[in-house]
């Protein structure tokens, strides 16, 4: 059973198409994250679900009912805004109960619910204050409280954590997640931060330029990105893309077209063409162990955070990869590394961890069935 069903949804402002043929099903109780770079249409999509934006064509159903033309108040969804959008002229309690009062719920019920939510979110002492007397984290909680007090058909979050500082963000991330587990309410969560999406959601939707690139569980997106865009977007630091040539009947590739950087692949691809090799920084190792393929590189810079070290390096490249620039790679290593810029190192990678993309379409090149 799907709580939110979107079929072939389009939205245009004049000639500008901001959402292109979106189809998406959100199961009841799921936590779905919409991610993508700014301007990809994720907020617009969220706002069309809320009813704040009209759709140009397609169908939008909430709990099985077509709501295309229904105003927000008839959709029974709750939303947490990036700026929290607390009513400045109302107290915290009034902010939270506003929706209930609009629906003329009995006073007793309202009081009970306020007490419940205040307890869940730890807002008990703040109920009489106005929003301007609250800290950023407190405002964020009130905004959450205003949404959950209603027990709506779905929660919509529009980058609710982006105005918080880093540590608070991590903390709230966990709280929202726990809250979702506790309430079990269908949630759609918009963020431009893929870590947020990966850590919180059951299902991640990657958007680009108004269209869906890929939908799937967080690890699926990580492991099986359908294209270069998703591969680059998911994962941090971002995947390295290196021009390469398929050789050896499609069983190996030459990084940067350089015969010295010959990497065997886990599975065969169609041979004889230029491709992009995708190497995740965390899959690269110094020295190379086990099944790893190795190639030589030169360290250009080292950034250590204590728990992690990021090493920028360049590899030699041959004539076919185009003249001029060195090919740059980032390697992520846990702990502290002793390498220095200028060091010559050997880098290893497991053949199974090498992704291959078509340089023109960006699509992942799937393994060829054995000939």
């Amino acid at each position, binding site marked *: 059973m799907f709580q939110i069903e979107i079929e072939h949804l389009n939205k245009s402002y004049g000639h500008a198409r901001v959402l292109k043929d979106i189809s998406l099903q959100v199961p009841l109780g799921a936590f779905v994250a919409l991610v993508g770079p700014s301007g990809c249409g994720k907020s617009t999509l969220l*706002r069309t679900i809320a009813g*704040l934006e009209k759709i140009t064509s397609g169908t939008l159903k909430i709990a099985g009912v077509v709501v295309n033309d229904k105003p927000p108040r008839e959709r029974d969804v709750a*939303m947490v*805004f990036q700026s929290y959008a607390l*009513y*400045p002229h109302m107290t915290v309690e009034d902010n939270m109960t506003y929706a209930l009062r609009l629906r003329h719920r009995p006073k007793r019920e309202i009081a009970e619910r306020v007490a419940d939510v205040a307890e869940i979110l730890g807002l008990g002492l703040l109920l009489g204050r106005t929003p301007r007397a609250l800290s950023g984290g407190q405002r964020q909680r009130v905004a959450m409280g205003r949404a959950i007090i209603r027990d709506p058909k779905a929660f919509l979050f529009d980058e609710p954590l982006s105005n918080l500082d880093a540590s608070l963000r991590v903390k709230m991330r966990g709280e929202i997640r726990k809250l979702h587990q506790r309430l079990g309410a269908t949630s759609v969560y918009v963020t431009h931060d893929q870590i947020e999406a990966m850590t919180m959601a059951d299902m991640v939707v990657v958007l680009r330029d108004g269209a869906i690139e890929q939908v799937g569980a967080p690890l699926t997106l990580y492991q099986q990105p359908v294209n270069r865009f998703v591969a680059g977007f998911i994962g941090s630091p971002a995947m390295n893309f290196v021009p390469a040539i398929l050789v050896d009947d499609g069983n190996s590739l030459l990084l940067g077209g350089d015969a010295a950087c010959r990497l065997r692949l886990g599975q065969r691809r169609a041979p004889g063409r230029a491709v992009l090799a995708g190497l995740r920084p965390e899959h690269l190792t110094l020295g190379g162990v086990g099944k790893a393929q190795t190639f030589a590189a030169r360290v250009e810079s080292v950034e250590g955070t204590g728990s992690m070290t990021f090493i920028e390096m360049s590899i030699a490249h041959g004539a076919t990869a185009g003249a001029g620039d060195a090919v740059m790679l980032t390697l992520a290593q846990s702990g502290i590394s002793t390498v220095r810029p200028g060091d010559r190192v050997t880098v290893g990678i497991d053949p199974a961890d090498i992704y291959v993309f078509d340089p023109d379409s960006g699509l992942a090149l799937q393994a060829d069935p054995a000939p």
Partner: protein
Amino acid sequence: MKRSLLTGVAVVLAALYLFPVYWMFVTAMKTSGEIFQYPPAFWPASPHFQFRAVFASYNLGRYIWNSLLIATGTTAITIVLGTGAAYALAYVRGFAVNVALFAILMLQVLPPSLMVTPIFVAFNQVGLLEWPRVAVVLATAAKTLPFYIILCRATFTQVPRELRDAALVDGNSRVGAFLHIILPLARNGILITGVLVFLQSFGEYVYSRSLIADKELQTATVGLSTFLGADANDWVGLMTYSSLYVTPILLIFVVLQRRIVSGLTSGALK
């Protein structure tokens, strides 16, 4: 030290700016010989007040009452019609909004002195001149409305759009969101702009003069123009009348100005 120096500079600037107002009061207290004297007297030798005489003989109480009625009516129409339009023009975007703003600005181009003849002709046709003060209110409101919309629109652009969205999601209709959430937040700006419109329409002259035939219904500005006729040469009387007319407004203003200025200069939410 430096800050009080700034206060000193501010006082000097204000004094320079307000000199014409001071000059009006001083002239009102001079004798008719003194006003032509050179060098001019910055304070009359023996200040004499004919405020009471002018007030009584020019029926000023009655005139000011009429002015108040007309200004109140004009302000009411302006606020009722203008507030919603200002809100919509601040919240909605697109080509139609540009066209509407354009039209609103366009429609206030001509001075009332050139608008009044067609208005007179039209009002006469439809019989509006039977209610001359209503006619003046209707005509004046058309003059103040564009000004009000443009200023008020600026206030609404400072009320975050997300507040309206939140109200809609919370279960309000657009009407409800406007009335319960946005309007209270823009209240300050609306009040202040309303005061400015009130003051402006209180000083309206051309329409009152042309559309009101009955002397009992005339406004204070029209009474003022009595002094500017070819046969009138009572400059002291003119300044006395002006002082009488302006002083109550100035007093209200001095009392309210802190609110007015802070209301205008601090955004809706600050």
